[in-house]
């Protein structure tokens, strides 16, 4: 990829989207004879050719199981797979590659935390603190933990603007019982960034560790876990232009060392007898079974792709897209946009007065526009705003202003249709 070619001359930090789009073969697809307008990247992003090729090439030229073969193929594959760990460590500025645990997705990362940290480190009577804008995957594992272990689940309310109520946050920490704050870094519905640095400072002041669900945030903004000073950070490959089936849990070495394993099996042990087994060092202690090898290779390539474009350019592009979308959609009669957070990323959810979100999505689909409709796996947040469902448009590096204009024009027609 020629990076220079993708940055507009004279306008640093703005992407040449036309060039970027050429890297994504799927964007040439037609949907019912119409160009694909893919505004559902927050659910899963499309893949650049570099990722597709990296995985294909691995399968065609150097593939075997990792960490166990004493042969050339296994050694090469192990190097490639472990290269992904180094790429992740560099992406989020981890201090140590051992702190990077591979999982299947953010859901598994959060379940690992609920299991190993929740059951292994937290004690009954302590509490886990989440927010009112969490994805179900950052709610349900803690409910299971609560019901099994008597570890309280507390919820920080969301303001009318769609931001975290920081006064309530501090009040909920005040009794010192919160052992872990597990919170989204960017809402998949509202697009709101939570104030990560403040969250960490306040939580640490009250003795709580902090885990961020960065599924959305890592796509849009440079993450530096050392600068954030958080304790754990989770994200997934498939939203970051990489393959499905590989997620990440980063954690501080000493915390990961102290946690018991999650799944048991091969790869995660040091030795096994029928009397007892001992565990491998981190990260392998948390990686039972054959890992997502090809997915790791794909993720490495995706991270490389994103790093070459650079987060400054990505963030500037997406800020411009969101501003444009808020202006265009906000000007349509009958469109109600959820959340007015000051700090927000490339996601806009809205309700239309005359039509249910599913009807909106079906009509937009007829135009070749892919959006998500429903509760976005965030039912409590929907109810907070008195809704059952919304339509969500989400943006990526390949999204254009023209596509947002087309969405806005189409929404006007949808509203006409349901007159």
């Amino acid at each position: 990829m020629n990076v220079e070619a993708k940055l507009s001359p004279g306008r640093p930090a703005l992407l040449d989207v036309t060039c970027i789009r050429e890297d994504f073969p799927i964007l040439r697809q037609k949907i019912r004879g119409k160009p694909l307008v893919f505004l559902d990247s927050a659910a899963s992003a499309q893949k650049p050719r570099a990722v597709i090729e990296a995985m294909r090439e691995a399968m065609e030229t150097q593939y075997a199981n990792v960490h166990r073969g004493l042969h050339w193929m296994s050694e090469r594959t192990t190097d490639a797979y472990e290269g992904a760990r180094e790429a992740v460590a560099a992406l989020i500025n981890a201090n140590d590659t051992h702190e990077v645990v591979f999982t299947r997705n953010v859901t598994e990362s959060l379940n690992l935390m609920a299991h190993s940290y929740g059951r292994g480190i937290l004690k009954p009577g302590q509490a886990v603190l989440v927010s009112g804008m969490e994805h179900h995957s950052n709610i349900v594992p803690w409910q299971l933990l609560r019901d099994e272990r008597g570890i309280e689940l507390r919820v920080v309310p969301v303001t009318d603007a769609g931001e975290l109520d920081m006064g309530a946050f501090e009040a909920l920490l005040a009794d010192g019982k919160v052992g872990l704050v597990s919170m989204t870094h960017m809402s998949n519905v509202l697009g709101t960034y939570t104030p990560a640095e403040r969250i960490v400072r306040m939580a640490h002041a009250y003795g709580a560790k902090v885990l961020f669900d960065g599924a959305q945030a890592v796509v849009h903004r440079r993450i530096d876990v050392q600068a954030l000073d958080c304790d754990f950070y989770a994200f997934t490959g498939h939203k970051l232009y990489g393959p499905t089936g590989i997620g990440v849990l980063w954690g501080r070495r000493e915390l990961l060392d102290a946690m018991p394993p999650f799944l048991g099996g091969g790869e995660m042990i040091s030795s096994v007898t029928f009397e007892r087994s001992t565990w491998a060092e981190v990260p392998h202690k948390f990686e039972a079974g054959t890992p997502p090898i090809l997915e790791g290779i794909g993720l490495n390539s995706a991270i490389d792709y994103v790093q070459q474009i650079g987060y400054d350019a990505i963030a500037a592009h997406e800020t411009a897209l969101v501003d444009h979308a808020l202006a265009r959609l906000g000007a349509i009669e009958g469109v109600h946009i959820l959340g007015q957070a000051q700090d927000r990323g490339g996601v806009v959810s809205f309700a239309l007065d005359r039509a249910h979100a599913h009807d909106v999505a079906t009509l937009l689909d007829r135009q070749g526009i892919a959006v998500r409709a429903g509760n976005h796996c965030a039912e409590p947040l929907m109810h907070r705003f008195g809704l059952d469902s919304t339509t969500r448009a989400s943006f990526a590096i390949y999204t254009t202003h023209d596509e947002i204009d087309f969405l806005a024009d189409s929404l006007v027609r949808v509203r006409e249709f349901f007159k």
Partner: protein
Amino acid sequence: MSDSFDDLRDLYHEVILDHGRRPRHARRLESFDATAKGDNPMCGDRIEVWVKLGADGAIADTGFQARGCAISVASADLMAETVIGRSKADTHALFEAFREMARTGKCPQCDGALADPLERLEPLAGVHEYPSRVKCATLAWHALIAALEGGKEASSE
């Protein structure tokens, strides 16, 4: 653009838009013999159905309250319209035939004894081309059947 939305008339038939906008049977019954809730967890559609039975055991009246898309509301309303006065056995048969129609677009029963009500439900047949929307059309029916069978909850999952 209007051309492509016109294609959608096979899904959003005028009858559906009309019943979706102004359902005639969207009301809770004051007195009823059976009730059930329906829930489609995938899309968040919810419905509650009430049934009043006559002395002969047939459906004397039915009403519903729904939160969902135009298709689910219209389907609930057309269902109410077609099952009032009908025996439980007939209602079951109608459900089976309608479900087949919604899933496949085919209606082998349409020439039989249920020809009239099925013709009334026919505007919903277009959902078969939209697999993700079939459940919107069948949710109310699942709730009604659950109510008739003495259940409390139904899911179109």
